[in-house]
């Protein structure tokens, strides 16, 4: 196997694994901020117990995220050194800004959340929760800026030596896809944790554990579960339109759309036969054109507008995208069902629904992983869309043998981390929140 192929696989694997954890961090930070704010306002210990449980989980999530995140920062230099040499002017400052403006804030205050309960006043503790929330989301902002610049580069020019020169920092940061991709990603994390909180609380309620704490947790979870997938529908729609506008080849791959047409169909399910340039499946006639700008006859660019060597792996992008969209629709439906059960007061006795919720916990991860595959594989063969090929970005001095070593190393370590993470996560959940003083052990 050649070094380039191994480098791509290793990056896909390490970023795919890392991505699981920040996607839990942001939403968990939101849940902690909500419960700690309610704790401060209502002075009710129930919220404090909820915060403490999720602070323990955050400790575990954050540490695996940080440990696997440092691998990503190294990887641009270790595995993509030609890319780093070419885009240092833009990509470097974005990563450095992430450190100075965001990651310091999150990392310094996360220590207070995990270790500081007995040492600091409730107000300082709340400030720490706010700082972890703000720091985490700022971190997401800068990482999304970096990735969005690779999707829709802006604020640069190319000099005679072929290097990317920064001409406008603000245009590079607020490139055409930054904000819409940020909202889509942040909401994905919130959905992930809405379902995580609902699932954990549903398990407690169904088993009759932790009484009022579990019921309050379920209420917070279900409200978030009802709201966040709906907000995501809007953000996702905006993102899809941006992709059609700025990355038409990726958009065409997402729908298996070969010919530029007016009145393009949208597939609910399907299969793309790239060799024969045909897509089979269940489709809604003119659906894609309609969703693009509410005009059944709007023009959608097809893959054949560019030469085949510049197509991404079409079927993989198509399937990933459709799995993500399908899961999103399921989340909307189940979130609304949950809201209705909560509204009518039936949720605490809805055995079937409570039984189902814990099994949903892995599904948002599947959704955001397939979403990430859509975004990143859909960008191929480019490392910077339309500007630089992925193959041109790889390190030149790293051999296939060295990559084989690192690939095996990461596979073994990440397998261990994954097993330990799941085991300890389940253990912390089973141990549950601490009992409320004076209300007996439930």
């Amino acid at each position, binding site marked *: 196997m050649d070094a380039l192929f191994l480098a791509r696989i290793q990056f896909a694997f390490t970023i795919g694994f890392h991505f699981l954890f920040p996607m839990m961090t942001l939403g968990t930070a939101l849940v902690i901020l909500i419960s700690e704010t309610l704790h401060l306002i209502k002075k009710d210990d129930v919220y404090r117990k909820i915060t*403490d449980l999720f602070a*323990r989980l955050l400790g575990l999530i*954050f*540490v*695996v995220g*940080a*440990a*696997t995140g*440092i*691998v990503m*920062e*190294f990887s*641009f*230099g*270790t*595995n993509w*050194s*030609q890319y*780093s*040499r070419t*885009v*240092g*002017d*833009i*990509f*470097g*400052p974005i*990563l*450095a*800004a*992430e*450190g*100075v*403006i965001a*990651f*310091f804030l999150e*990392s*310094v205050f996360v*220590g*207070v959340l*995990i*270790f500081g309960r007995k*040492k*600091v006043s409730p107000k300082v503790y709340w400030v720490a929760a706010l700082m972890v929330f703000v720091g985490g989301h700022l971190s997401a902002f800068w990482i999304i800026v970096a990735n969005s610049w690779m999707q829709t580069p802006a604020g640069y020019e190319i000099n005679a030596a072929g290097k990317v*020169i*920064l001409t406008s*920092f603000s245009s590079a940061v607020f490139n055409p896809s930054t904000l819409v991709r940020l909202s889509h990603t942040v909401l994905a994390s919130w959905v992930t944790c809405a379902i995580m909180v609902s699932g954990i609380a549903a398990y407690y309620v169904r088993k009759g554990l932790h009484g009022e704490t579990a019921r309050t947790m379920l209420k917070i979870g279900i409200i978030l579960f009802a709201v966040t997938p709906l907000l995501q529908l809007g953000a996702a729609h905006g993102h899809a339109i941006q992709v059609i506008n700025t990355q038409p080849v990726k958009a065409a791959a997402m729908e298996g759309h070969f010919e530029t047409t007016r009145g393009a169909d949208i597939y609910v399910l399907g299969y793309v036969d790239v060799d024969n340039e045909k897509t089979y499946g269940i489709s809604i006639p003119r659906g894609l054109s309609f969703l693009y700008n509410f005009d059944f006859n709007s023009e959608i660019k097809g893959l054949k507008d560019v030469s085949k060597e510049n197509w991404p792996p079409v079927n993989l992008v198509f399937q990933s995208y459709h799995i993500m969209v399908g899961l999103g629709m399921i989340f909307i439906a189940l979130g609304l069902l949950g809201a209705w059960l909560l509204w009518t007061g039936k949720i605490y006795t809805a055995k079937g629904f409570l039984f189902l919720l814990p099994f949903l916990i892995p599904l948002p991860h599947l959704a955001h992983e397939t979403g990430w595959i859509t975004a990143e594989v859909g960008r191929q063969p480019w490392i910077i869309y339309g500007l630089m090929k992925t193959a041109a970005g790889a*390190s*030149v*001095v*790293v051999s296939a043998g060295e990559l084989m*070593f*690192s690939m095996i*190393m990461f596979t073994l*370590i990440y397998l261990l*981390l994954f097993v*330990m993470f799941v*085991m*300890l996560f389940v*253990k912390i959940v089973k141990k549950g929140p601490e009992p409320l003083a004076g209300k007996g052990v439930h």
Partner: protein
Amino acid sequence: MDNIQNFQVLWFVLIFVLLLGYALLDGFDLGLAALLPFLGKNQEEKNTLIASIGPVWDGNEVWLITGGGALFAAFPHAYATAFSGFYLAMMLVLLALIFRAVSMEFRANDPVRAGLWEKTLVAGSALAALLFGVALGNVVYGVPLDGRMEYAGSFFTLLRPVPLLFGITGMAAVLMQGACWAVMKSEGALQERSFRAALILMWVNAAAALIYFVVLANVFDRLLANALFYVAVLLTFAGLAILLVSVRRRNDAVPFCASSASFAGLFLAAGAAQFPNLITASNDPALSLTIYNSSTGLYTLQIMAVIALVGMPIVMGYTLFVYRLFKGKAKADDHY
């Protein structure tokens, strides 16, 4: 201030400061964790030691992440050459950093295998402490580079005597940082043991630093004409002398400050030897990566200077605030 050379020099200094900050702060976490089996004689003592770094180590590691990001932003060629060239060594650094990070959390939540996670914590911390010095030693002492700015050596090129001397000297300094942090955060028998460890490590550091400075002065003859070199030597040995006196007097906090000063002296000497190079070419000085041929454009350096000079004082402010929240002696049951 629109001369690009001013900003290239400024960024050399800023990255030096970030890496020094990393060395001093994460230095005590790594050093303390590496010394765990020697300082802590039972579970309670070990828990106390880990509790003393638990709330702060992750913030400390961000100094490295930011230093790496700053190197990427200011001198992408140096970042690209070193990280891809030292590939296997960098993978070992990652291995060490991953294990030291997750081991503390796993140890606390997984009592059945706590012994295993303690071993991975100790090994990961010790390995990281050693490798950083070896890496720094290589870029200062020099490695073979080709005309495309690419590394032309092998993994074993990195293990020459002078870089290994940097590694051992750096590790001795890191261990001393850890012992002095333990002195500051512990009481009773644990503190007494930490004092003794600090004293032994003071002598180890004195010997290592003496060899280090002599070797530096011989390898880089220009250093003898550089005032910073003498400041560095003075800082290190004054730090060690104060450490000796304060440990004898059983002072809590002074040893840590003295140890930090001593470590800073080692760093300053390396920086003075290195400037204006980033990666010295051992085969041909003309192939060296310097701050002048490896940097990004003026505009990028200016933007980054604004972000760093406004952002870092704020970072230091809230870092200090959080350290103050956790000031005083650590307790074994501080975790959750």
